[in-house]
């Protein structure tokens, strides 16, 4: 995990479930095959209804062509990542090049998967940023200070501290953490 995470924001609403993040019929690709796994990036967020994809206006694909997205940080609402336990969800976002999600709250399995696999940094925000930030805004997260700055609009917001999971994210993933702690 870097101390500073910056790039373009992609804005989504509440209850973005794992079927929207990566629709179930795409769950068949191998994750340990360099070429095949790119499909997860290619189809990341392809299940989001078009009108809700890239708020406030919608109709913006997360991945335009190929398997990489131009967006680095997702701004979400409540209950981000609800639904199935599929780790393909944070993995697909990771393969597409996403670094962090900033949401009001998470479904716990998505949160856990993001942390344990070190796929992305799941920040919680006390404020509802979905109505503040626009898709395409240039934003920057300062991990140590727990803040998010919107450079396009010149505003800074406080994020909740990462707390217990910061140690795992700093180590890289749960394996690196467990090795450092002498557990494996």
């Amino acid at each position, binding site marked *: 995990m870097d101390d500073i995470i910056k790039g373009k924001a992609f804005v989504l609403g509440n209850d973005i479930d794992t*079927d929207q993040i990566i629709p*179930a*019929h795409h769950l068949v690709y191998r994750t*340990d095959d360099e070429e095949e796994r790119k499909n997860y990036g290619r189809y990341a967020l392809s299940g989001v209804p078009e009108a809700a994809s890239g708020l406030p206006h919608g109709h913006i694909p997360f991945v335009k062509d190929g398997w990489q997205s131009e967006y680095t940080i997702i701004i979400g609402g409540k209950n981000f990542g*609800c*639904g199935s*336990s599929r*780790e393909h969800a944070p993995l697909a976002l990771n393969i597409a090049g996403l670094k962090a999600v900033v949401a009001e709250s998470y479904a*716990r399995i998505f949160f856990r998967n993001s942390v344990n696999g070190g796929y992305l940094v799941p920040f919680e925000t006390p404020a509802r940023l979905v109505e503040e930030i626009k898709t395409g805004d240039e934003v920057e997260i300062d991990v140590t200070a727990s803040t998010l700055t919107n450079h396009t609009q010149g505003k800074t917001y406080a994020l909740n501290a990462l707390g217990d999971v910061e140690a795992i994210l700093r180590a890289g993933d*749960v394996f690196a953490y467990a090795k450092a702690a002498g557990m494996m």
Partner: protein
Amino acid sequence: MGMTITEKILARHAGRDRVEPGENIWVNVDTLMTHDVCGPGTIAVFKSHFGAAAKVWDADKIVIIPDHYIFTKDKHANRNIDILRDFVKEQGIQNFYEPGTPRYKGVCHVALAEEGYNRPGLVLFGTDSHTCTSGAFGMFSTGIGNTDAGFIMGTGKTWVKVPATMRFVFDGELPPYLMAKDMILHVIGEIGVDGATYRTMEFAGDGVFALNMEERMTLCNMAIEAGGKNGVIEPDATTEAFVKARSDKPYEIVRNDADAKYYAEYVFKTKDIQPTVAKPHSPDKRATVREVADVKVNRAYIGSCTGGKITDFIAAAKVLDGQSVAVKTFIVPATTEVAQGLKEQKVNGKSLQDIFVAAGCEVGPPSCAACLGGPEDTFGRLQADEVCISTTNRNFPARMGSKDSQVFLASPYTVAASALKGRITDPRDFVA
């Protein structure tokens, strides 16, 4: 201060006298379950971190139940089964329920119960969000991702944040037209899809203890639809009778302390609950069946870990016996044992299978089938703008296939009654 069932089970598995909600603890795992969708990914994680030649921590504690994409020509899906087959051979894992053999079972959460893996006091992790189903047996069970599972595969351990317990008490037994599905849809409507995030949902009261194990599984199954980490029900004689018939392995009954502390307690009068649906596209969009009784449907689906057990099919058969369905109606037994039950169990002297066929339903082979859409050739999959009433657990956009479809979730009684009329129909018209 006393502890809840969940706190006690987790404390014992962490080798501690007590734990507090919110603490992160490392626990020893009794059982790790995976299936065809997440198994290959879990194996890949395991091998990349523990080495290509590594052995799993305990071959007898790993259970692999392929169930999602079984009856399909999709080449990637079939390749996944091959990966599992090679892995169990290499590791000496006996608990493998291979498709295409007599050991094939079907939907993992129902198979776990049937095969005696669910026993009071155990800690079970599974790479499927509905792993919370097993909590019906007074054990701790929850869903995890592939990285977590790969870690457990190598170490037999994982970390958990101890959840605080929300208690849902049902006073009084169920009227004959109500099922566990109505109760849980009522609860989810009450607290919302994130109402129990990070928490345990415990179900109690004589309305719950009057239910058989399958119905209790339906309650715990949908804890995840309210964001819950696990569902749990205190074991009783019904639990023990079921477990003893399926397993001779030891178990430990764990109960709430009298002074256990709950995060919240909700008390419902069971008889006041109405037949309930969740409207598209979220399990918490609650309505009573009567409120949506004019909505036309053109598809009915009875199946899944939630609504594809023998109790569910007996309920449906009571409604469908001697009648004809007005819309395409798919019957998908969760497991091979349930499929066998369709032939053996009788309502009004006729087998369930005969009742369904005579009513014009299509009966498919046991698996998850269209519960989660799946490859295009999946049995019962929604391919266009169908409006489906279903006994499954999720109605997110595109969950059962096409993005243009709509899904109403309901009990087997309500789904069967609606199938007969072609519109959402109150089961009280059929079940006294």
